[in-house]
């Protein structure tokens, strides 16, 4: 199996799906001539031409809505936000149009659109550029929300997202674009809505997604050094949640720490905690812990930002708390 970066895996997914289906187009800021702000779309303009790979003006509401209209008319647009932090400018188009037109029309329209781009904090870009908005979009009933942590999932899930007949928010994390991993050759899809056990363990389950999965894995190493066996569960898809896999792990370990980069209030971890206490109350031996981004706007200074981000140390501390 080839070892490639997350950005190369995403690029392969886009290229293969555009090759396969002439209705798939890619639009966004700097996706064509510039080859992508994060190089995810590198080479696609040369391969598929300007009709299908379109540089947009800095106009998120306009081009996100344009993508929804094109999807209503049968195309399958992939709309890139340079970062998801900029998607708030397009929030109405994503929530009210992509999210509700099928329902409001009594099922007359399909909206096969993928919104994708980078997200996340930790690179000292301040409050406006550091959002992890998966919980915001998971609150939209029709929306599928995907947050890959590894290159093989990034490729397989993006291919599945493009083939879905429904709107998908595909939220990448900037910190992971250079992360390398094995990716199978060829047309391999990853099923949406299935979590992945990244590390087997028996005493505590660390539930995470995206970049937080790597924080959880680092914590599991620390815990192992202290003789504690932690299971790491990467949700991969935030909506729909893979409840059966979550419950199976909780039944096994009886202790849970949720690790999420987003802010705590109504973060996706709150929903996961609710599902666990509701469905597996008797399996729990300790209150569920959450390690989240702190409830402050993202600061610039490195020392401040690192204090705000979930860290392996905070996760380890929380895991030990569940073990008394």
């Amino acid at each position, binding site marked *: 199996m080839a070892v490639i970066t997350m950005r190369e895996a995403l690029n392969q997914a886009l290229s293969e799906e555009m090759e396969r289906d002439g209705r798939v*187009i890619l639009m966004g800021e700097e996706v064509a001539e510039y080859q992508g702000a994060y190089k995810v779309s590198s080479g696609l303009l040369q391969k598929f031409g300007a*009709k299908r790979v*379109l540089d*947009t*003006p800095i*106009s998120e*509401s*306009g*081009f*996100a*809505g*344009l*993508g*929804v*209209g*094109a*999807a*209503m*008319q*049968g*195309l399958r*647009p992939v709309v890139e936000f340079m970062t998801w932090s900029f998607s708030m400018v397009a929030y*109405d*188009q994503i929530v*009210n*149009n992509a999210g509700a*037109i*099928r*329902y*409001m*029309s*009594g*099922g*007359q*329209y*399909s*909206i*096969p659109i993928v919104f994708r781009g980078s997200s996340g904090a930790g690179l000292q870009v301040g409050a406006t550029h550091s959002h992890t908005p998966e919980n915001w979009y998971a609150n939209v*009933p*029709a929306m599928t929300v995907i947050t890959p942590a590894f290159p093989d999932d990034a490729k397989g899930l993006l291919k*599945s997202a493009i*083939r*879905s*007949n*429904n709107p998908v928010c595909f939220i990448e994390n900037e910190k992971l674009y250079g992360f390398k991993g094995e990716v199978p050759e060829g047309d391999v*899809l990853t*099923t*949406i*809505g*299935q979590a992945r056990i990244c590390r087997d363990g028996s005493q505590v389950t660390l539930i995470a997604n995206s970049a937080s999965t790597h924080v959880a894995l680092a914590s599991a190493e620390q815990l192992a050094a202290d003789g504690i066996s932690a299971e790491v569960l990467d949700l991969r898809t935030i909506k*729909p949640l893979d*409840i059966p896999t979550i419950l199976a792990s909780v039944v096994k370990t009886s202790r849970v720490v949720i690790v999420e980069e987003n802010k705590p209030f109504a973060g996706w971890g709150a929903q996961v905690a609710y599902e666990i206490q509701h469905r597996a109350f008797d399996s729990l031996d300790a209150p569920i812990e959450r390690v989240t981004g702190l409830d402050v706007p993202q600061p610039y200074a490195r020392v401040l930002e690192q204090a705000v981000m979930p860290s392996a140390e905070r996760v380890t501390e929380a895991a030990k708390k569940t073990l008394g």
Partner: protein
Amino acid sequence: MASSGAKKVRSKEKPGNSPAMLPTLTPSERVDLLRKMVLIRRFEQKAAQAFMQAKIRGFCHLYIGQEAVAVGSISTLHPTDAVITAYRDHGHALARGMSSRECMAELFGKITGCSRGKGGSMHFFSKEKHFHGGHGIVGGQTPLAAGIAFAQKYNGTGEVTVCYLGDGAVNQGAFHEALNLAALWKLPVIYVIENNEYSMGTHQSRSSAGYPLVKRADGYDMAGITANGNDVDDVREKMWDAVQLARTESLPSLVEIKTYRYRGHSMSDPGNYRTKEEIAERKKESEPISMFKERLYKEKVLTEKEYEEIERQAVAEAEDAIAFAEASAEPEVATVFEDIHAPEDQIAEFRPPIGS
């Protein structure tokens, strides 16, 4: 034709191949325009009555006074061209050929409604008639229209998109972003500002800087056209130019159509921002149905007796729509979980059953 400051329509002239002219309508086609305008008027009056009886709930924005705009403009389109509008959408839906029954049933929240009772007054849809909504957020439909036109151009269908918006929408960012994209990418879309002078209760003089509003086309190097929305013939003539520009040259335009609504912004509007005298005066000088009716009398293509029959049929159709809506079933509560997601056909279904 073009207002001061706004770009004139460019028409491509080739030797021996003059641009398509606005087709002259037969007398019966002209009478049909009037018939549609009267139907919209009577439909809306019946809807207002039903709203007062609390049979229609929520928001209900009536089109009374603006009928010539939808009827005149849509009459210049092919049946497969796309139409999209804002929340004052009953008139456009009827002009597009949606049935009075499915429209009234939607207002009543019945399963037989055009959106199965899930959209309501502001969210009529008929994909079959290429009527793509019915959109509730001011200006929110304008990027969608650019996208529909983008797909028309991408697929090379030769179809065009007409997007209606109110004068209150011209100050939304989405509208400007859509105009820029439409002009930049040469999309076959016509944006029609239905200027009824009031954005809800705020007169345009208190909400918009820069008149006429069509001047906003200038900034995007788009054709700007104005029309008299009380005169269905003028609407047809001016819209025809914009539609040809889109169809033959794939160029967008902005059309400002001056109109006036006789009823409140919505049914819950007390109307204290304008006088009864103002409304009476506007009706007297330029009521669109009377104006067109008188013209048809003069042209000897319509008699008073025939007009009475048109009125009678319109009232009968509106009453039939009310009866149909009242007799229709409420949606089964279980349908609340339907129409959220399209079935998957390229990947396996991945969502757990709702409520599991």
